[in-house]
């Protein structure tokens, strides 16, 4: 098993080192990713300034939902978000290179990059989650802690599944790749 995974480990290690080597660019990427997280939070806050509660949730309870959803999504984005570059590989013909290598396509695509710059956005999600758990006086019983961790795990898994499914659809969409976009 360890022998089987070794190429991926080496590849990912190289990606991580590559991202660190352009320090200024990496720092800027971290900052923009942080800003994306903060602006999303600001949008929730702007809406809640105008009203006390939406659908039975006040700001503190909405923050708990935000924290869970944002952390799960950004973890998925960090791990597999780059699979949405597939249409570019397809159009440029560089996808053929992946087909020549003796490794599964999806595993190659996922390990083709790791978006460490999105760590700062995960940071925003986790911070909001921690603040929200404290602000909502969630009793920290073993059951609740387990539920929180399980929500993050399954939430990320669901987002990863959707990312991969959307990338798979790109084989048929190509030009219409925006159809599966996660931007408005």
């Amino acid at each position, binding site marked *: 098993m360890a022998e089987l995974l070794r190429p991926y480990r080496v590849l990912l290690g190289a990606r991580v080192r590559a991202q660190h080597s352009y320090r200024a660019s990496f720092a800027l990427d971290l900052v923009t990713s942080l800003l994306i997280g903060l602006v999303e939070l600001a*949008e929730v806050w702007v*809406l809640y300034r105008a009203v006390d509660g939406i*659908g039975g949730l006040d700001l503190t309870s909405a923050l708990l939902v935000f924290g869970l959803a944002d952390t799960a999504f950004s973890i998925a984005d960090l791990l597999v978000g780059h699979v949405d570059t597939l249409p570019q590989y397809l159009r440029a013909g560089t996808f053929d290179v992946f087909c020549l290598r003796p490794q599964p396509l999806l595993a190659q695509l996922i390990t083709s990059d790791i978006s460490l710059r999105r760590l700062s956005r995960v940071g925003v999600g986790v911070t909001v989650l921690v603040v929200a758990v404290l602000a909502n006086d969630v009793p920290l019983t073993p059951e609740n802690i387990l539920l929180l961790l399980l929500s993050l795990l399954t939430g990320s898994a669901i987002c990863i599944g959707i990312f991969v499914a959307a990338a798979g659809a790109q084989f048929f*969409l190509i*030009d219409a790749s*925006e*159809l*599966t*976009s996660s931007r408005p």
Partner: protein
Amino acid sequence: MSARVWFRIHRRLFVAGWRRGSQYRAAALGGLIANATFGFLKASVLVAAVRAGGGELGGYDAASITAYTWLSQAFLGSVNLSGRSDLAVRMKDGSIAVDLLRPVDLQTASTAQEVGRALFALLPRGIPLIALGVLVGGMRLPIDRVSLALGALSILAGTTLSFLVVYLVAIAGFWIVETRGLQTAYMITAHFLAGLFVPVTLFPGWLLTLAWATPFPSMLQTPIDVVSGRLEGLSAMSVVAVQLAWIAGALVLGQLITRAGRRRLEVQGG
């Protein structure tokens, strides 16, 4: 170059951009489906917020927030809030050297093409989304001649302004070559301050002042307000005048920076 020749050249570039936009049918359909999906999401959240506010939210009722939602989605295909442009790519790969050899102004020529391509998106993306808002959301729009004309002018001005500011982002490449970071910064700021997710008018006072000190609300919020009839008569005319003032400012700034940048240009590669 006489004004007539200038106009003819730029009209042709505009038409060429329009035609180019008309070629990407699958892309337009993909964009339409993405915009419509987010339209439903935004509409449900914002209408729920209006209901929670007792039928009123910062001057919006259910009908006007619905109009805001669907118009913002409809104009999104045309107004450039992403910060990306062909010029930024040409700046990086060195083709900019060819562009600068052409006997037309870099700023106005590239903007005319981009605006032509962007406005075409109103046909496959804008109109279906407005129709969806009318049919599903029960949106109503004023259809008297003055409002329509002012609305059309406001859409044109908002789109043009967005591309003029994106041009400024692209030509920063004269100095820093790779402008991807700036493009992302533009995208984040523009999405928020142009009023894409939440109307700018819902911002708290200080943030509202900050937003209106930038050109971003003039790109999206103003066309929405004018077309939806939320602003009428003199107040509509004054926000359109603000749009035109920003366009003039961006034009002048772009000219000055281009002039300074031409002397700095170092083409990468060979």
